[in-house]
């Protein structure tokens, strides 16, 4: 189980990093989203993995998983929506303003190329 989760984190990180290094805004945003997943899951695992022991108190249950990372990750997920929305808006604004969705500053010739 630990191996699966860790490898998922690694894969999400690798894919996220690769996409973040692309040259257009959209894949970069996708990459950031993937990195967000990776980070959230990683933070979540700091409570260690436990199957079938949700932190909802029951009279008969004695063992619960760690609730604190869950609370922190919950807000992180919601905040990451806000962050993604802002980044998308910035990317969109830049594209609408210059008709170019490169993440790197372009020379004049390249910029016109990008429009075609």
């Amino acid at each position, binding site marked *: 189980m630990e191996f699966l989760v860790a490898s998922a984190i690694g894969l999400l*990180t690798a894919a996220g990093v690769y996409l973040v290094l692309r040259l257009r805004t959209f894949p970069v945003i996708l990459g950031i989203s993937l990195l967000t997943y990776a980070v959230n899951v990683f933070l979540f695992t700091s409570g260690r993995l436990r199957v079938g022991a949700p932190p909802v108190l029951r009279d008969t249950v004695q063992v619960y998983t760690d609730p604190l990372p869950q609370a922190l990750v919950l807000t992180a997920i919601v905040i990451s*929506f806000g962050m993604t929305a802002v980044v998308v808006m910035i990317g969109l604004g830049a594209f*609408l303003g210059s008709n170019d969705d490169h993440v790197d500053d372009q020379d004049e010739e390249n910029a016109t190329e990008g429009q075609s």
Partner: protein
Amino acid sequence: MSLFIIVALPFLGAVLPGIMNAAGRSAVGGVTFTVTLAAFIGLLTNLPAVLAGEVVTARVDWMPTLGLNFTLMLDALGFFFAFLILGIGLLIITYGRYYLSRNDNMGQFFTYLLLFQGAMVGIVLSDNILLLLVFWELTSLSSFLLIGYWKHLPEGRQGARMALTVTGMGGLAMIGGMLILGQIAGSYDLSVILQNREAIQADPLYTPALILILLGCFTKSAQFPFHFWLPHAMAAPTPVSAYLHSATMVKAGIFLMARLWPVLSGTPEWFVIVTTAGLITMVLGAVIALFKHDLKALLAFSTVSHLGLITMLLGTGTAFGVMAAVFHILNHATFKAALFMSAGIVDHEAKTRDIRLLGGLRTLMPITFIIASIAALSMAGIPFLNGFLSKEMMLEETTKTVLFNTWWLVPALATFGSLMSAAYCFRFIGHTFLGPVRDDYPAKPHDPGFGMWGPPAVLVVLVVVIGCAPFLAEPFVKLITGAVLGVAAEVPDKHIKIWHGWIPALYMSIVAVVGGLAVMLIYKPLQKLWDVTPRPEAKVIFEAIIEAAAKTAEAFTFWLHNGAFSRYAMIALVTIVGAGYHAWTTGTVGVATRALQETGPVAIAGWAMLVAATCALVLLHRNRFLSLILIGIVGLMVSVGFVYLSAPDLAMTQFTVEVVTIILLLLALNFLPNRTPVESSPLRRIRDSGVAIAAGLAAFVMAYHYMLRDAVTTPISEFHLANSYKGGGGTNVVNVILVDFRGFDTYGEIIVLGIAALLIYALTETLLNGPVRARLLNRVPDQPRAGDMHPMMMVVLTRVMMPVVLLVGFYIFLRGHNEPGGGFISGLVVSIAVVMQYMASGFNWASDRLRYPYHGVIGAGVLVAGLTGVGSWFVAKPFLTSDFTYVRIPPFNEFELATAALFDLGVFLAVVGAVMLSLESFSRLARRQDTQESKFAMDINPSRDDPPVGDPGAELK
């Protein structure tokens, strides 16, 4: 008067002149004078205590943990400098009132002057070296303002910048030196540091500390090789020059050397560095001064020279040297301030300070002539004037100083310096006042009013009095010397006398004066020789260095910050991975304490889907719609993973967030190209893959090892689990943490979310009101539009679902405290319900029916949450303390009422508002000119007779 008030008065008073400009120039000058006078009298009230040998202190702990305390100390040395600063300040203020013309902003001038004065008084009264540094930097800053006071003059601005650069750099070095010093002594209080001479000098860090502190002192006091800024600062109005360069600013470095003399001096390092720098400065300054044509430049270099003299005396490390230095500080302050003011008078009346255009002013300006001549003769070292006394003490000291094992080196150079000094003094008098009266002065010179010649006259009287009756000054000089020496040495019992007998110093004095006269006789050929001698111009070198530094910084900045995001991302990633690798290779990994858990087929299946979707996403990311679907799968699998791993709340949140994110990205993709072109070279892609794989591998290794080990200390979660029900009244521990244990965090987070949404709104507004608006309105969509944009089926379905979804949201909200759910999740669920209405019936239809603007909803949410927190103040509990109770209203079962639920309501509202405001903003961009907005819920409605309005598909068919 309390020392605090003395230091605070100039700062507080600095406000007054600035706002009193309208009251007239005399009022501005008067109030400045009064403020200074008050501080001066306050200082004098402490005189009896100082004379009695006491040290007056005042102390307020400011940041005791940092060792930074507001501690002031007044001993004889501090008193002496404060006396000079405030006393000469009074004269300068009087003089400045009459010097400045009607065109100058006098209020501003005196505000700067008082700021500077306060900073200087602060330096000399500080008992804490960190506090001293604060004031030190303040003098750099306020002197920058003063030197650049005539903003319209380029030389003024350049001079101010140069002064700030040089003294600022020195200040920076000094901060380092002072911190080291404080670390060695174990305290930043001067009174403690001064007791630790042996410990400090034995410390291996003594030399670095000494060099750094001396850098600060040398730059401030214009010692070689930092002497060049001072003459350029002469572009300031003359009162500033007179104040900064006779009594205050440049003396700050000298003051500090004197203050720290007991701990720093006496070592070979101190002796060699300080004496050499002082000696070179003294000779160099005197030589350059002789050949300057500008009166103020001449005086500036003479100041440099005299500062060198004082520095050299402090460098010798003997008690007699200190006494001579203290005495010369006093004498120099008196005659140099008088000289500067005289030069200012000449400039003011004759409208030039070029010595070549002057001469013969003796009969035209008799009063100025007398004042300037006495002061200059004192500087030249003529008997019965105070300059003679201290200069002879200096010469006597040099005969006992052996530098570099050469007995004659110091005396010879000192005599040569004195000779040049006498020569430029004679030139100052001779070429300005003596000689024939000319008829080509730029303006007709005459003596100014008393307001301008009075202040220098007062000083000249002092020059003569001290010069004729040195026994009057002697007790004070000895008292101050004692304060400098502290416990390090005894005050010498020598007396300050005019006649010492036929000692070497007297011969040296005679050589200097006679030699000075001789130089004047052959001045013309010397000047010619000087003019043809090539020499380095300090300003050119300085500017070349500044330019080179700026160029380097520019090149470095543009190399790093070249507008390429992918480069920044690459640098950051490589650094992070590199740091991780370093930690991995140099650190140790503990033993695994947890066993691997078993993996069922379901988990493997979910993992496989996640892996497949992620890999497909990378491979197919150029097709943007497809990649949205794929990232949706990834998010879904993450949610499922959360369910499986006992995190139902997270799963619900992730799932709902996934929905709104995908909608958001779809809205954005409406405008963006739907394919990503191939641009990067295969090599680049391989490089990026390499970095990506390294980062992924690092994340994998870290997560894997992390999960196999237990926490080092007991997690706080035990507390949360134990107190969730008892203290928070809820069984869903995650929710209780969010709204109760860590409610303050959550409160901050909903505010951040709200701000993000408002930011998106603001960006949309900017776009819609800018040049982009026209393009958006005339945009031709690159995809065919749907023929039936608001289909009946969808409209009807969303209407039916709306109450159901709202009910679900309400249910999730209510049960949140005890079961998975809560404000965040129900907020997202309700948002989805509302978004569906937009999707089904269009933006206009939906926003027409919008009762409350989303900004208001965000605000209400934050307000509700905040007020809930504030409510606990009324029962005298800290912010956000929660409370709950169980009530029973007859037809229902017993249920719980908790303030946390109210807080959760705030969270709910903020989330709904933020999500909706973001999505709404994106949709507003999509409105176009060629699409007529329908006011109906659906385009085709059988129950309606009229034809559909604005069929958007029509023109595309």
